[in-house]
């Protein structure tokens, strides 16, 4: 039986290890204003976070993660490149599964605001992964990586107008909608509806101009050539890649079929594997899943990773979240990558290893 004080001691040990690697400690409030979280995650966060009300501050949430308050603090204090760590409880509402905990500890390591170059990105991605791998050293975990850049490159390379690519990119995290969109763009559009009868009163804030604009867009859409099936097949094949990391790079290159942009994305994964090898992590021991984190980790945009063990919650997860920093900063480019460990899971593995 693991007691809370043991989990807290493990969390403090992990945090100290991150501090020793140059991270400064961040300690946010447990109660966070709901506004930024709602704006970022949308209505779905209400099903996943505990919402409460303060008479003066309005709607508040028990923090569902540390990343959002951390990024806000980084932006508010106009910080330059910084390494951060934190340890504490996060809270998740469970509507469907009462075996899942509603609160658990997380310990994080994050690099926010590094240089915006491709080299700096790979260096930061590798540093976060290796730092977390080192703190889990000796535990029987399997590392899995993914890279959204492979999929977004394939989407941006489709021979179709930008608005369709944007719609696909926006829904990359929602498999049902993503497949529905691919399907819709692959078939002739239904007839364009006529504007409403002028005798019908218009109600509501969405204006007649907005309706006309979208009707015009639907007309344009009906004239747009269908997606090429070879390109859709290629995208689906990329999404399905699950292999050891070095083999996955070969898979991506093979599926790219000479598409230079996708081959470049494969080289990006290769460069990351080289950077990891330089930090004594053997790429052959890692799994690569192109769709890793697609359903759970909505805000990740590039490199993603996780460490797992049988019969335990994922021991550690993380990734690059430049889109989140852009959203919270009003569109600025603030490169950021980080990950969290669940000390309860790490402790359970340590106990089992003894």
């Amino acid at each position, binding site marked *: 039986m693991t007691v809370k004080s043991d989990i807290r001691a493990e969390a403090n040990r992990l945090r100290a290890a991150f501090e020793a690697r140059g991270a400064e400690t961040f300690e946010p409030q447990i109660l966070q204003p709901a506004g930024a979280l*709602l704006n970022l995650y*949308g209505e779905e966060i*209400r099903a996943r976070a505990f919402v409460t009300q303060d008479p003066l501050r309005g709607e508040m949430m028990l923090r569902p993660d540390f990343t959002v308050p951390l990024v806000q603090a980084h932006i508010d204090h106009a910080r330059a490149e910084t390494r951060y760590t934190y340890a504490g409880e996060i809270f998740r509402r469970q*509507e469907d599964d009462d075996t899942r905990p509603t609160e658990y500890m997380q310990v994080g390591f994050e690099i926010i605001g590094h240089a915006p170059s491709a080299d700096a990105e790979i260096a930061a991605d590798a540093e976060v992964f290796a730092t977390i791998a080192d703190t889990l050293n000796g535990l029987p975990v399997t590392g899995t990586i993914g890279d959204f850049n492979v999929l977004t490159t394939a989407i941006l390379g489709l021979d179709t107008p930008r608005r369709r690519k944007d719609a696909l990119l926006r*829904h990359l995290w*929602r498999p049902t*909608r993503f497949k529905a969109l691919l399907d819709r763009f692959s078939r002739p559009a239904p007839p364009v*509806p006529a504007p409403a009868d002028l005798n019908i009163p218009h109600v509501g*804030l969405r204006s007649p101009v907005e309706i006309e604009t*979208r009707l015009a867009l639907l007309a344009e859409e009906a004239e747009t050539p269908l997606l090429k099936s070879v390109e859709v097949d290629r995208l689906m094949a990329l999404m399905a890649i699950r292999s050891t990391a070095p083999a996955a790079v070969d898979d991506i290159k093979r599926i790219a079929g000479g598409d230079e942009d996708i081959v470049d994305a494969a080289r990006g994964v290769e460069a990351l594997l080289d950077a990891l090898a330089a930090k004594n992590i053997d790429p052959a021991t890692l799994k690569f899943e192109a769709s890793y984190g697609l359903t759970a980790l909505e805000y990740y945009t590039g490199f993603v990773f996780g460490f797992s063990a049988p019969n335990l919650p994922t021991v550690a997860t993380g990734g690059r979240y430049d889109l989140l920093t852009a959203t919270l900063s009003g569109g600025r480019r603030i490169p950021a990558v980080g990950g969290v460990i669940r000390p309860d899971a790490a402790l359970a593995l340590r106990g089992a290893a003894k």
Partner: protein
Amino acid sequence: MTIKLGIPSKGRLMADTFDWFSARGVTITRTGTDREYAGRVDGVDGVELVLLAAGEIPRELAAGRIHLGVTGSDVVQEKIARWDTKITPLAPLGFGQADLILAVPKTWTDVRDLNDLDAAADAFRRAHGFRLRIATKYHRLVRAHLKAAGVASYQLVDSQGATEGTVANLTAEAIADITSTGATLDANHLKVIGDVMHASQATLFQSLTAPMSAEDQRLLRGFLAKIGVSPGG
């Protein structure tokens, strides 16, 4: 030892429920003044009447404070997380039918289904700086339905009544509510889009959590046999 039967305490739902039991040889009558929430069950042994607000019956069933209860299947699914582990439906009663639907202004001819709604919601968010608002009191059912369909970029705003009016009042862009004839939607210049999210009707439910002695089990079997309903759980 008695079987506790929860029935809505007022209105059409109460009267229709009384009629449904009466047609099966069980007479339920209110006792005392018509303002007193007390009553009697005749024609069967060991069944006690508990008059409750219809909206509270799901909670009482889930908590096991009543053995049986009549309420809409919509409120059960809305109010009780993992309802099917705590409550089981025994029989639809054939009245109180209502469909939970999503409706938008009739002038939105560009929005025909949830695909369109999702695209319109995304454009709305960019144009207005906030997410398209859907007024409803069925938060869980609507959220689950839209999540399954992959619709994003919306927000739910709570509306406990007169929901069809929220669009004209500019407090929401769309609504999700139960409708039986569609007349109120029509009068408020709204049209239904997408599938029915939940087809509700008054239903006799059994609690799976209420403690029952052997005697209670016997009474329950007798009662259900009398009204011609198969036991659940």
